[in-house]
């Protein structure tokens, strides 16, 4: 596995820097902050995402849109994403601009203006974003899955928040959020590109000099996940086909089941010859599309079977899925199936680390919510998985009596 290397340095402030050298005309600068929906209360749901929006609204040294203008003028792509556990900001620039870009991204994170007028205007934008997701059947399906499977925990709340909680956010909330989470000990910066490591580390040291830091601590209480019960939710939208999912609560990124669930996802529902595709689409014609997805977070994960159909029924699809789960035990995955799944995961891994941003995001996510070393050891773990272990995990996770079923179908 030549080339799968990186260097990590922890500064005295607790700030972590990871560098992966990769040949590219671009450099990706990816800052990760350990804050997400899990740190929110129901009454301030949407705060992490709203703060992420607000940092783009001008900084102390670059008020208004000056900073985004500078980024665009160097050919940079700047964006951010808030999730259940983390918030990350990335900037991809032609490599000759990496120093300026790094300074700008640090400015964005540590010196946002948070102007009250901008706060009110941005609330309208975020509410538009909420509407947009409500009008998209696939986004709505995803929201419902998280809401129902993670019911009663912060993970069950929407990343964007709700209209009423967004409307109620105030400057004080943002300042407190900034103080608690936007400090050096709570961040990792991943830089991926054709740079010299020593130069990067010494430059970053200068850039972050004087920035705030606190002891990193996990103050937020996180309740236990409720014992899953069978849930069925059906709703209507102005769509022409049905969008469905069967979802199961399972272990997250730190769970011992993590690699098995990834492998099972490929065996069951990734690719033309995955078991569910052959049975439900090719043989029985029950669905237009079917695939599986394992979404993993720090404290838990969701394994879902997603499907669409133009004519058919949820019951028929679920019966067929149940048969395929049963068949896992009657006809366990063959060596050929395991080899296929391992090879597909291996190729997918190499495709992710082929780009500067893909590498940075992979390393950053693992460093934030697990251990960065695990990011590059995924392939080794896969080699050691055996059928007995795979079936144990399948038995534990795929219990239809504990499944959450969602179906969004056409209105009358």
């Amino acid at each position, binding site marked *: 596995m030549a080339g799968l290397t990186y260097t990590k340095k922890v500064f005295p402030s607790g700030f972590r820097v990871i560098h992966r050298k990769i040949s590219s005309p671009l450099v990706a600068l990816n800052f990760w902050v350990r804050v997400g929906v899990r740190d929110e209360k129901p009454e301030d749901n949407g705060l992490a995402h709203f703060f992420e929006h607000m940092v783009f609204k001008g900084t102390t040294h670059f008020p208004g849109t000056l900073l985004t203008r500078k980024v665009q003028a160097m050919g940079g792509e700047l964006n951010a994403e808030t999730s259940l556990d983390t918030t990350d900001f990335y900037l991809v620039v032609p490599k000759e601009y990496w120093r300026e870009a790094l300074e700008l991204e640090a400015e964005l994170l540590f010196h946002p203006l948070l102007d009250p007028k901008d706060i009110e205007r941005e609330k309208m934008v975020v509410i538009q974003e909420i509407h947009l997701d409500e009008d998209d059947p696939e986004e709505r399906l995803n929201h419902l899955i998280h809401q129902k499977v993670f019911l009663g925990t912060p993970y069950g709340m929407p990343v964007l928040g709700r209209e009423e909680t967004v409307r109620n956010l105030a400057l004080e909330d943002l300042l407190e959020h900034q103080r608690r989470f936007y400090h050096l000990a709570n961040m990792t910066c991943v830089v991926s590109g054709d740079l010299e490591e020593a130069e990067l580390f010494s430059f970053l040291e200068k850039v972050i000099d004087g920035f705030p830091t606190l002891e990193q601590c996990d103050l937020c209480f996180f309740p236990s996940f409720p014992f899953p019960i069978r849930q069925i939710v059906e709703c209507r939208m102005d769509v022409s086909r049905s969008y469905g999912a069967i979802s199961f609560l399972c272990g997250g990124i730190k769970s011992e089941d993590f690699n098995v669930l990834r492998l099972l996802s490929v065996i069951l529902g990734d690719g033309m010859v995955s078991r569910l595709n052959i049975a439900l689409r090719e043989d029985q014609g029950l669905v237009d599309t079917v695939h599986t997805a394992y979404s993993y977070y720090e404290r838990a994960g969701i394994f879902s079977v997603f499907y669409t159909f133009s004519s058919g029924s949820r019951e028929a699809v679920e019966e067929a899925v149940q048969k395929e789960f049963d068949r896992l035990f009657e006809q366990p995955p063959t060596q050929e199936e395991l080899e296929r799944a391992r090879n597909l995961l291996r190729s997918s891994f190499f*495709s992710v680390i082929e780009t500067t941003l893909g590498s940075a995001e992979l390393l950053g996510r693992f460093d934030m919510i697990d251990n960065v070393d695990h990011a590059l050891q995924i392939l080794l773990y896969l080699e050691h998985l055996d059928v007995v272990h795979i079936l144990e995990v399948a038995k534990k996770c795929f219990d239809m009596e504990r499944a959450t079923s969602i179906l969004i179908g056409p209105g009358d």
Partner: protein
Amino acid sequence: MMQEIKDRIEKVVLKNGLVLLLLPIPESALFAVNLCLHLGNLFENDKERGISALMQEAILKGTTKRNTIEFNQAVERLGAAIRSSSNYFTGRIAMDGPANKSVEILKLFFEVIKSPAFRKEEVDKEKKFLVGLLRSLDDDPLKAAFHRFRRAFFGNHPYAFPTLGEEKSLQILEVEEIWQWYRKIFVPNNMVVSVVGNFDGARVRKIFEDELGGMIPREKLRPTRSSFFPASLKIVDRREVRDAWVVIGFRAPGILEKEERIAFEIMNNALGGGMYSRLFLKIREERGLSYQVGSSYLPLLGPSFICAFCGFPFAYFDAVVSLLKDEFRSLVNIDAEEFEEAKNYTRGIFLHYFETVSSLASLLSFCEAIGLGWDFPWQYEATLRRFTVEEARTIYRRFVDQKESMGAVVPVVV
């Protein structure tokens, strides 16, 4: 790095007209092969609408040697992926996977190109799939507005229809018609194949000569329609959605108009290409009216368009439409500083193509197939750098005064 990549590319033209582009990247762990062909909307008449899409779906559903499952098992066992697609005027068969399986990947690539099966049951299944997909195009409100815009702009030109075709024509297509279409499209003089990644160039060249050198050239397909005048219609439909979506645009240079096209790509990025674009600033930053607002320039073979799109509360419909039109017009006065910034942004986006073996393979075969030449990406960068604001303004002015077309989806209940 860019020059180094260019210097490594070898172009080989087989005696039957097939063009092969080889780009070895020894440090890569991956391998990609990409075939680009002329097919799609532009070459289909009313009765054939969707035949390219159906052929491209069905072509991966088994060969004369193996059925659907056996063929795809062979692909996926390698850790490889195969995709086929059809668009407005080109289509592709693309494979990628681990570099140490390059020879096996190529064998499967040739099998699908030379010996598809088009079994009736598979064709019928894919027909049903495409019809379902067609019906669901409107499920996403932004796509629904775009679809209406294309009809409003292209009128009865083949580009007005979804690249998937139309339900009525798809339903009556027979297997024999797919075969005839395949025989017209998959001819060596309509094929450009690029191979990128970690492989032995001499060996791969020899494999191609052995496998595809014997194919017989035939007359290439011609577009079904050459004349075009924008329909400039306004199509607005009501749907049960929270917000309104509008797409407004007008005619723009085609993909072969090299200079004009580059000017428009820069202008498009100044208009709605990023967080500092004019539309983003005016509609999202200054007024907070929209989360998703931007512009899109789609250079095609022949008639092409530039458009602005926005999702927003319906109460602001007239205001937003007016803002979009104003921004189209005022772009004529772009100054040198803003233009330079948009140029740099355009270059930054362009560089992303050089990060992966599959995006490079796709770029090379596409540029060569449509007549720009495989080295167009390098000309592109040079032209981009020397373009002046005066030149771009002159080109933009020639297009901006046209009557615009509009497609929109608005809420049923206001």
